[in-house]
């Protein structure tokens, strides 16, 4: 019977093509709009490192001004001072730990024909690569010894390696960075976590860096730092004084394997802050936090307000489209009252009628879903074009989303079809069969 209902639905859709077109476009537009915004939200709130997001923790310590709390006292500062992150690094109380900051530099290629290259960099610890599961094409990250002995080593991104070495294995070769020779120890494969969780402070959806160098080279002034710096207390003169200041500009991540480890680490942090209080630092009440990846993305509100707002609006839009469909289906099915009466006279039970009209609704839903998918694809292309770099990589449909689109269309249309179908099934045959 199913194929028979499908055929009847098809005939009905084709014969009343104007009405069908109206319904399919309404559902298509509704689904298309909803899916566009859902996809953007979905990608913005995606887990960038699902295999480890529960074990990676961002460290926050409340080192701020006793008179004027950071973020109105809602959250402790979003970065650490150089002093604190260096101390935590030295303590080595976590399974893995990484201190980092954004950096930049100029690479002077060996080839005199090539122009110098300004690169975005990250200054980080050796554990960065193993903590964040960074994939390598050539070589690997540097060792902790390299960190301690402040070696001039560098890890290149695939693009940088392509530019400088034509994509060949460059491990062991040297590059001139800000006037110093750095030895290449590894080349990263394409790696663009979205959101770029490991540093939200400089843009959650920015691209990952061109080069990676040991963090302590910043203190040695072998690489220039960039990124956000936030101070509440005047600093002394010179770079040494800046490093010793209460300015926050470093980010600190730890990898902790079990909840117990996390508990222990938090204890350690509290003890550390207690200790620091004796030196007149940390005058605010203790508020140290360990946030795992998803918690951190949430407190930093990486999903843009605009995106959430538009998702809410687009769902309301979808509801309008569905109300539209309910109305049109109702009109259509009630317009078929004589046919329904006749089918009952010819032996159709309510269940068979119900199946027939629900299947017709579902067909319209699937058509609407397919149209919605096309529109969502176009919509995402449009969003990408409109927002530019900001939306790079945040506007692509995957299989999940495609299935969701058709599923959503199907379910919502069937829901929209329920009332009209129910009305259709309750048509009294006797009244319909007399010719008017």
């Amino acid at each position, binding site marked *: 019977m199913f194929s028979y209902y499908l055929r009847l639905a098809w005939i009905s859709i084709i*014969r009343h093509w104007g009405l069908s077109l109206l319904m399919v476009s309404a559902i298509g537009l509704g689904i298309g709009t909803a899916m566009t915004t859902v996809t953007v939200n979905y990608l913005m709130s995606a887990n960038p490192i699902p295999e480890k997001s529960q074990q990676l923790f961002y460290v926050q310590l409340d080192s701020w001004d006793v008179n004027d709390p950071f973020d109105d006292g809602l959250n402790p500062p979003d970065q650490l001072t150089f002093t604190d992150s260096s101390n935590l690094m030295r303590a080595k109380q976590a399974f893995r730990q990484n201190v980092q900051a954004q950096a930049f530099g100029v690479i002077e290629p060996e080839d005199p024909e090539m122009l110098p290259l300004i690169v975005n960099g990250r200054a980080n610890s050796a554990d960065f690569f193993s903590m964040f599961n960074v994939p390598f094409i050539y070589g690997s990250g540097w060792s902790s010894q390299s960190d301690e002995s402040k070696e001039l080593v560098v890890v290149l991104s695939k693009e940088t390696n392509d530019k400088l070495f034509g994509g060949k294995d460059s491990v062991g070769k040297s590059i001139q960075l800000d006037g110093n020779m750095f030895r290449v120890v590894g080349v990263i494969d394409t790696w663009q976590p979205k959101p770029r969780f490991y540093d939200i402070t400089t843009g959650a959806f920015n691209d990952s860096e061109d080069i990676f160098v040991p963090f302590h080279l910043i203190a040695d002034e072998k690489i220039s730092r960039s990124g956000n710096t936030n101070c509440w207390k005047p600093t002394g003169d010179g770079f040494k004084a800046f490093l010793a200041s209460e300015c926050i500009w470093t980010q600190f991540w730890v990898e902790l394997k079990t909840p117990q480890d996390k508990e222990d680490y938090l204890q350690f942090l509290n003890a550390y802050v207690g200790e620091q209080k004796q030196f007149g630092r940390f005058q605010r009440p203790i508020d140290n936090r360990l946030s795992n990846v998803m918690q951190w993305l949430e407190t930093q509100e990486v999903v843009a307000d605009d995106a959430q707002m538009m998702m809410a609006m687009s769902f309301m839009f979808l509801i309008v489209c569905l109300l539209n469909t309910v109305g049109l289906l109702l009109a259509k099915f009630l317009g078929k009252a004589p*046919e329904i009466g006749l089918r009952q*006279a010819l032996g*159709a039970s309510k269940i*068979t009628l119900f199946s027939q009209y629900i299947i017709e609704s579902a067909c319209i839903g699937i058509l609407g879903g397919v149209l919605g998918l096309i529109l969502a694809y176009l919509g995402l292309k449009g969003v990408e074009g409109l927002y530019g770099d900001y939306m790079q990589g945040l506007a692509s449909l995957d299989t999940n989303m495609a299935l969701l689109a058709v599923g959503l269309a199907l379910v919502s249309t069937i829901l929209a079809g329920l009332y009209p179908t129910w009305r259709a099934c309750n048509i009294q045959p*006797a009244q319909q069969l007399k*010719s008017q």
Partner: protein
Amino acid sequence: MLVMKNINKIFQTADIQTHALRDFCLQVNEGDFVSVTGPSGSGKTTFLNIAGLLETYSNGEFLLDGEDVGKLNDNGRSRMRNQKIGFIFQGFNLIPDLNLYDNVDVPLRYRGFNAKERKCRIEENLQRVGLASRMKHLPSQLSGGQQQRVAIARALATSPRFLLADEPTGNLDSEMAQGVLSLLEEINQQGTTIIMVTHDAQLAQRAKRTIQVKDGRVSELAIVAPQIHQAIA
């Protein structure tokens, strides 16, 4: 065999009660051709709707082929309509979206016949009413008489025991009406019981037996008792 005993049908609206059938009694035997006449509002259509299981009755007893219709639920009535009853209407009531083949196919689908059986029955019945060559046409491409023939083909496709016709020639000119009536007579001769509601006295005469309905009652039996006793015996 169709037996109605003291059937009452009361329509209840907000403030008016209409007694459409009052203690309606009727027996129609196998192979009969009964015409039902009566003035407008006499209850003919209500009778036909109840006989066709399209409507339920308020009280009384109605046996169709020995089965108590009052005990059937909606599904049961649907099944019985599909298996035992064929309908012909004044307005033909073909589904405008479907071609002739698909129109005749409708009750066969509900009956659950397989594809081969359905095809065979559709072709046979369209052949019987002389429209086999126009299977792929839409109802709107046919004349009234032709449409009614398709409706008859559809009614016969399930080989019903009873054929209920409601003013089958009401929308047809006299020539076409004659054709349709001849077809009905032929069908009756082949064994199908026919109950035909009409207000055309001439047409009614062509039936084997005529009853008249007035104020919701059978007021007169044109052909009387003996046959009934015979049938019961």
